[in-house]
């Protein structure tokens, strides 16, 4: 019995080696296939994220191909729901999450200040601009996302150019009926559920004050749950204009949906979307390997295929995307936002209610 087991083990190992040798020989690069050190890392890691599910699962699959002995369990939900789960885990003292990738630094800094994150500088950290990294080394951006004004190209002939157009009665009256006087001509995502929306609401409130949202409400803006919901509502024509994330629009444009977008002239919040490792991880080797992998050229290029602006400066952004420096920006203090998350959500829901 024992003999059989040993011979089986040898057989499997040999097969693994042969396989890896064959693939790496074929592709010419040793990084894209399991090698000695990569098969040594084993176990399960729990990956909590608010990036769209299809992308998260694709990345996990790619990682498992490279590290065949590591299983990545993906938990995907809106930032608030991920945070609720994490908070409950922290509260109960049984933290399951190993790697966390949320939309905006606000929530991640909150975790850092709670003292539950691990300090880690990934392999290619120097390829990520400094403003997109935690100075203390607890998190690093894996992508950039930006709230934009998107619109249905079949309905809207003169798209808005800046945030203030969305609260300008003159602009609204230039729209075709019924949107020139109906509710729901603009849809925005809800900061109660989305981290990116929280950052956007905070940025706008910093620049224009909460009055912006009071006006928006009186002008008939509707609040939908997520950025994805806003994008779909625009495409379907339920709400012809909306605030959603740049890459989602680029993805839909690629699919041929009647949607386009502008980076508003008066600036948007360019959000470095941070990756962090939980201090409590039971499998630091796999967690670190996974974060390295997220910042690898392979994954960064994969993100570009989904229309996402990569965190690495040495990876070409999606076609037709301005470089980050050329996007007009509203700079916000992430540290400050992280201490005011509840306040921002509360203010917003008070006004929009």
């Amino acid at each position: 019995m024992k003999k059989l087991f040993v011979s089986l083990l040898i057989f499997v190992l040999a097969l693994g080696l042969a396989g890896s040798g064959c693939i790496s020989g074929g592709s010419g690069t040793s990084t894209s296939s399991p090698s000695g050190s990569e098969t040594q890392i084993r176990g399960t890691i729990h990956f909590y994220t608010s990036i769209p599910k299809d992308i998260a699962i694709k990345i996990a699959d790619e990682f498992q191909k490279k590290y065949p002995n590591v299983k990545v369990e993906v938990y995907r939900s809106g930032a608030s729901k991920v945070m609720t789960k994490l908070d409950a885990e922290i509260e109960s003292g049984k933290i399951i999450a190993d790697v966390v990738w949320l939309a905006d630094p606000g929530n991640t800094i909150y975790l850092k200040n709670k003292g539950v994150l691990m300090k880690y500088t990934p392999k290619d950290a120097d390829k990520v601009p400094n403003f997109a990294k935690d100075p203390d080394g607890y998190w690093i951006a894996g992508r950039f996302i930006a709230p934009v004004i998107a619109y249905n190209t079949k309905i809207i002939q003169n798209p808005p150019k800046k945030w203030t157009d969305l609260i300008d009665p003159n602009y609204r009256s230039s729209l075709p009926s019924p949107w020139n006087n109906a509710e729901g001509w603009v849809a925005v995502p809800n900061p109660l559920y989305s981290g990116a929306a929280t950052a956007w609401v905070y940025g706008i409130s910093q620049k224009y004050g909460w009055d912006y949202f009071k006006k928006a409400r009186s002008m008939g803006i509707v609040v939908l749950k997520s950025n994805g919901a806003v994008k779909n509502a625009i495409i379907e024509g339920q709400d012809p204009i909306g605030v959603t994330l740049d890459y989602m629009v680029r993805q839909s444009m690629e699919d041929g949906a009647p949607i386009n977008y502008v980076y508003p002239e008066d600036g948007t919040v360019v959000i470095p979307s941070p990756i962090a490792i939980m201090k409590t991880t039971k499998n630091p080797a796999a967690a670190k390997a996974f974060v390295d992998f997220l910042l690898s050229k392979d994954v960064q290029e994969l993100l570009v295929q989904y229309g996402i602006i990569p965190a690495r400066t040495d990876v070409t952004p999606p076609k037709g995307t301005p470089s980050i420096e050329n996007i007009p920006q509203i700079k916000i203090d992430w540290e400050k936002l992280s201490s005011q998350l509840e306040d921002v959500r509360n203010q917003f829901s008070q006004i929009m209610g």
Partner: protein
Amino acid sequence: MERKITFTQAMWLLSLLVLLITIAYPLAVLIYKSLFGERGFGYAYKVIASDPNTWVYTFNTVKLAVIVTFFAVIIGVPLAFLVVRTNLPGRKVVRFLAVLPFILPPYVSAIAWIQLAAPYVGYINRIWNGLGGSGNLVNIYSFPGLVLVMTLKFYVYVFLTVAAALEQMDPSLEEAARMSGSGPFKVAKDVTIPLVMPSIASGALLAFVATCANFGIPALIGDRARYYVLTTRIYSTLSIPDIDRAIAYSLILVIITGFALLIQKRSFGRKRYTTLTGKTVRPAVIALGRRKGLVALFVFLFLALTSVIPLLSLFFSAFLKNLYSPLTSLSSFTLNNFKFVLLEDETTTAALKTSVFSAFTASTIVTLFGALLAYMIVKTNVKGRLFMDWLSSVPYALPGTVVGVAIILAFIKTPIFNTLWIIPFAYFIRYLSYGVRTTVGSLLQIDKTLEEASLMCGANWLTTMKNIVLPLIKPGLIAAWILVFMPTLSELTVSIIIYPPNHPTIGVATYNLMEEGQYTAAYALSAVVAVVVILVQLAVNRITGKMGARGL
């Protein structure tokens, strides 16, 4: 005999403990936290007093419920009269179609109406635009839309209570009036309407409470119309998270619904109308005469529009590739939505498992524990049995949203929270009264002499239970199990508040798909839920029909 007493005592202690932990404790915590909240003493009440939005939500809730109740009476009373007291053709079908929207989960009804009457993409508006109309003919995301969907859901309360009253009415009263020379309208005004008035009021109050406590419809339709009510605001304040505010809104909701239920119970709940003679005489049927065809056409048209077409078009929508593709081309249709929600998507497939597991576990435990409680309430004279009876019924009388908040407050720090087990646990709390009430009903029909005879013949208590009591209440137990299984399988209101993030239920998954804008997937999942619910209901009708034949 000695053994019976100790056994009963042990059961008594167990039941009391379970009830105190699962029901009394969460409610006590809810009240305690409203006084000493997370943000200091009396914060919840400060919110009520200082935030004008509180009164907007309260006013919205009451206004919606009053208007829905009004229309529920307008529709429910005549329909009940037509079904019970006239020779309207197809009365059985009418009854089924009237009850159909009611057996569907509220969120499924809301979704059915959304795909039918949403602005721009809804079928009604697409047809309108196709005929050359401009803009939107209808907009479900509006106050009238909200009233429409809720009325069609809750008029059944009025319909059923009034129909029952009409069926049980002693026809000799009307005959007497007619013999005294009154015309049909005068008979209705002087005799029939006063006699069914209490039932109308009773059904109306039930519709009122159901509207106030509903979450699915205002969440899916009201939020888009920016018509916010207490239940939807409790849910969203929990996402901020601002627990104290959620508690404040919960208390207002409890006061409104509690007040209405109290009136309902006090005035109408206990009264047995003197017209109940026990004779099974069918009340006199009024011939509709020449207008029969017209009335029938009107009734069936109404029911087709309100319960058949929304459902049919929901099934149709579930096959759409996306909402904006042309309906005329065959390539716009696909089976992928069903494949996606039933096989591919991890969230929805996990949800199916979670819901089946939770509904199965909850209904089994509720049936067993409910039977135990019922036995003590009916067959023993242990101390506090009336208190236990009352306590077990409280969570069902409360709005589900409030029960959810209480469960969060009481159990968030326990190991069960954030695990799969919290869902059947919550369902147990919410639906326990179903198990108790149903079995109490069966037990009341067993005469004590049967058990006494068994005991006198030398059988011990356990044997008596097994041979006499259990067989007699078995149909009641089965009914209780199904009564809990059905609503918990597609539950949303409590689940959305307490569900652990990696264990969504079917209701939660459907709601989230709608909220995330994955409409076609949401339609497919709702269609599946609708089919399952209708099939189970038909099966139940068969089973209960057979039980009725057996006389229990």
